């Protein structure tokens, strides 16, 4: 049983390895890109966040697509992962207003006004 694939494997040996190695090279390059991108745009938060999230998404996509063989899987995998990702985004979006948009003590407009007029 083991011999038949071996014999064929000699032919398409590179074909099997190369996507992984190419993905690996791409990941290495992208890690470097992220590294320098982060040090260049360290003071511009908006550009930093958008860019880095993009690079991270590309890297995560490469890992999923090639290493986890999403390129060869059928729809059922997406039926499992898709809803999970959707719910993940939904959860963060729903929680965001309550936790991330709270007025900060002493930073409310009238409080800041009071400080200014006081000093």
């Amino acid at each position, binding site marked *: 049983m083991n011999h038949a694939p071996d014999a064929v494997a000699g032919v398409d040996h590179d*074909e*099997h*390895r190369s*996507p992984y190695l190419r993905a690996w090279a791409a990941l290495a390059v992208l890690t470097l890109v992220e590294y320098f991108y982060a040090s260049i745009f360290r003071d511009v938060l908006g550009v930093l966040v958008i860019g880095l999230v993009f690079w991270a998404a590309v890297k995560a996509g490469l*890992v999923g697509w090639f*290493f986890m063989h999403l390129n060869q899987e059928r729809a059922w995998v997406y039926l499992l992962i898709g809803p999970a990702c959707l719910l993940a985004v939904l959860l963060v979006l729903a929680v965001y207003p309550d936790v991330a948009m709270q007025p900060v003590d002493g930073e409310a407009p009238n409080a800041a006004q009071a400080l200014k007029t006081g000093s």
Partner: protein
Amino acid sequence: MTTLAPPLNSPSRSSATVGLVTPGKFAIWLFLATEVMFFTGLIGSYIVFRAGSSPRAYSNLYPPATDLSRTRDTVGIVIEDAGPDPDKVAFELVDAHVVGGAEEAKRLMDTAPHGVVGGLTNDKAADLVHKIEVASGHARIEPLKTQKWPLPYDDLTNPLAINLTAANTFVLICSSVTMALALAAIRQGKRLKSSMYLLATIVIGSLFVGVQVYEYNSLMFVHHYPVGISPTGHFRPDVSLFASCFFTMTGFHGAHVTAGVIALILIFLRSLVLGGYSAQNHAPIEMVGLYWHFVDLVWIILFTIVYLI
């Protein structure tokens, strides 16, 4: 993309379980979906905490979450170099009553070039800088800067070593590729090659865990950090919300990697047994591989949002 996928009739397509549903494979993907939700709980909390943190939660001169309303006009000094005789500089600090005692002063010398003394008036700061220069140290006056969250590369509020972790990220990516190659090898029936790739994955994965342990050790016990990072000098889970998030997220990720290494060791040992795995029968390698790549994927996200943003 299609050129990279193996052709339909290649042995890997017909002999392996890729594209076909087995209970084990379904379950591992479902498990990964639950893991997505688990890490969503942790990472999502981090995201909203970070976005909702008070603009004055962190500062370069005071411990995290200090009430800065009464310290608006203060400045601090940063001791950049304790000089050949740190005790002398330390003595000046104790003498000026800006630190709690000799012990604290000595610890402050260890944090140089980021030894921060806050809560000073302008005059006192200038005086102190002068005295430190006389004691052949070097210091500068640092105005109070507040920020929402510790920024990367900001030594006074953020203790994380980006260079080390960037290298470690690459290490984990390498372990992912060896894992993928181990699966590719067993699909072609190359058992020995597959075992060697598994061993490589174990070694590289352990290296990642080792670096993380080293990092934790330096953060929590070895290094002394300026007061903007931690009032005690050590970066531990309780010193700030940032620290809590950092240790919980990376800690749970590290636990997942460790569990993965253990699983890899088990399948590696089985792969050494004759008939352990073959081109037709290697579901455990595929499943552990999926888990391993997922853990790698989570790290890519964590590295980006915790260390770089």
